[in-house]
């Protein structure tokens, strides 16, 4: 099989890139997803944050571009409800040390032109009246928000599908192959060979092993993270919440349920196959609940209906790898999103489409290029 563009990875980045390419008139696009469903990895398993505040300065412009140019009109563009809600991000502090940390983060963002300000206890409690009395202040970024990763990812996919993009599930890639110095073939695990003018690698952590097949490596690791989901609750608040202590983050969805994430506990050290680790370890579950209760006591009685886990592709320096690879012409990388991939995906995908078409991307992405690891 031949195509103009082959995208490896049917997550939000892959699906959205396919969409933006199709929108530009690229005809022959193939998306390869190794699992049975689109958005099977971190695209469906994330807390839904569309956040700029607190991001690394190398990544912040991408997050800001996504919020300024893409998110507000995305539901309309895709014809699905992405549930994008721009009601701000409150990062909560309980101690003076927390406040110091929040100040530092806020200063970093302000220097990049993002509106993040510190709010005192009273203002924090005005913004969110459900906060525990222990919260003594917060940083607040009014342009941050959240959206629904499930409908957004599948929304991009369904739109791209409608526009003629060829999606394949159960499509396991064995490796890449250079032909006359250019990466132009994708070897499938069943031996089938696909070729394309441009190959985009957006396969999350699996990207690393695929890169290895052309003798290159991406210094990254897969890290497990979990979320809990509550029953439907009456509308309580609409901000995205985070904490200086990083003990939980989350928001209330349009449906009414709350989604709260936390750093995984024992899962991270257990030798278990990814396919059976579908839900939070009980230690993680308990710790997350205690953390949430500590900030929003009214939710103590709220019932959890499920938990889930997902994998972050975390690079050694904490930001994604985005753009062409000097040693592998024909290949464009988009992976290592460190758990920030959902909120930035529209901007990332748009710029990937630009790069594929030989255009200069909207932003200077040199800080995120692959070669930075070896400079």
């Amino acid at each position, binding site marked *: 099989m031949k195509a103009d563009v082959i995208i490896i990875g049917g997550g939000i980045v892959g699906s959205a890139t396919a969409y933006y390419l199709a929108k530009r008139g690229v005809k022959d696009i193939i998306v390869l997803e190794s699992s049975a469903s689109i958005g099977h990895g971190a695209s469906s398993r994330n807390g839904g944050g569309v956040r700029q505040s607190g991001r690394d300065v190398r990544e912040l412009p991408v997050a800001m571009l996504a919020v300024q140019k893409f998110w507000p009109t995305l539901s309309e563009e895709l014809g699905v409800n992405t549930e994008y809600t721009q009601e701000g991000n409150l990062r909560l502090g309980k101690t003076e040390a927390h406040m110091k940390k929040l100040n530092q983060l806020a200063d970093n963002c302000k220097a990049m032109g993002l509106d993040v300000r510190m709010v005192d206890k009273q203002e924090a409690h005005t913004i969110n009246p459900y906060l525990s009395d222990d919260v003594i202040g917060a940083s607040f970024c009014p342009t941050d928000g959240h959206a629904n990763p499930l409908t957004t990812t599948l929304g991009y996919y369904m739109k791209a599908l409608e526009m003629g993009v060829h999606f394949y599930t159960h499509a396991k890639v064995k490796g890449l192959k250079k032909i006359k110095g250019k990466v132009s073939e994708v070897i499938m695990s069943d031996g089938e060979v696909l070729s394309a003018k441009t190959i985009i690698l957006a396969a999350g952590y699996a990207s690393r092993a695929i890169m290895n097949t052309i003798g290159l490596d991406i210094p990254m690791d897969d890290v497990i993270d979990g979320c809990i989901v509550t029953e439907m*609750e*009456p509308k309580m608040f609409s901000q995205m919440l985070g904490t200086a202590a990083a003990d939980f983050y989350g928001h209330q969805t349009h449906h009414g349920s709350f989604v709260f994430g936390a750093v995984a506990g024992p899962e991270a050290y257990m030798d278990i196959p990814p396919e059976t680790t579908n839900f939070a370890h009980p230690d993680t579950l308990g710790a997350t609940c205690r953390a949430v209760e500590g900030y929003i006591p009214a939710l103590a*009685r709220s019932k959890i209906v499920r938990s889930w886990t997902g994998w972050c592709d975390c690079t050694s320096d904490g930001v994604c790898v985005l753009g062409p690879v000097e040693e592998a012409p024909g290949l464009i990388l988009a992976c290592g999103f460190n758990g920030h991939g959902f909120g930035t995906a529209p901007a990332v995908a748009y710029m990937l489409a630009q790069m594929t078409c030989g255009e200069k991307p909207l932003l200077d992405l040199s800080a995120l290029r692959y070669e930075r690891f070896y400079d």
Partner: protein
Amino acid sequence: MERITMHPILGESPEGKCVEFTCDGKKLEGYEGEPIASALRVNGIMVHRYTAKRHEPRGVFCAIGRCTDCVMIVDGIPNVRTCITPLKAGMVVQTQYGVSAKEEAK
């Protein structure tokens, strides 16, 4: 709906201790420890809630705590499975509209 007082196989039904509770403010009686849903049924109440989207009535469906259709607000807590929650004296039971009691329901 009646209680079964005498059964051809199980014999005489055990008589429970009568306790008072309220449903939507109305004073009712039931047996202590029986499922809230049973006490409601005996008092002729079949509608436990109205759904969030289509505002349709729901009641007991599986009676073993699995389907969660019979949930109501019990002592202020929404989504309580009444088919497996034992009745206690003085319980305040409310019909659930979406996930709220009526006055808050939109």
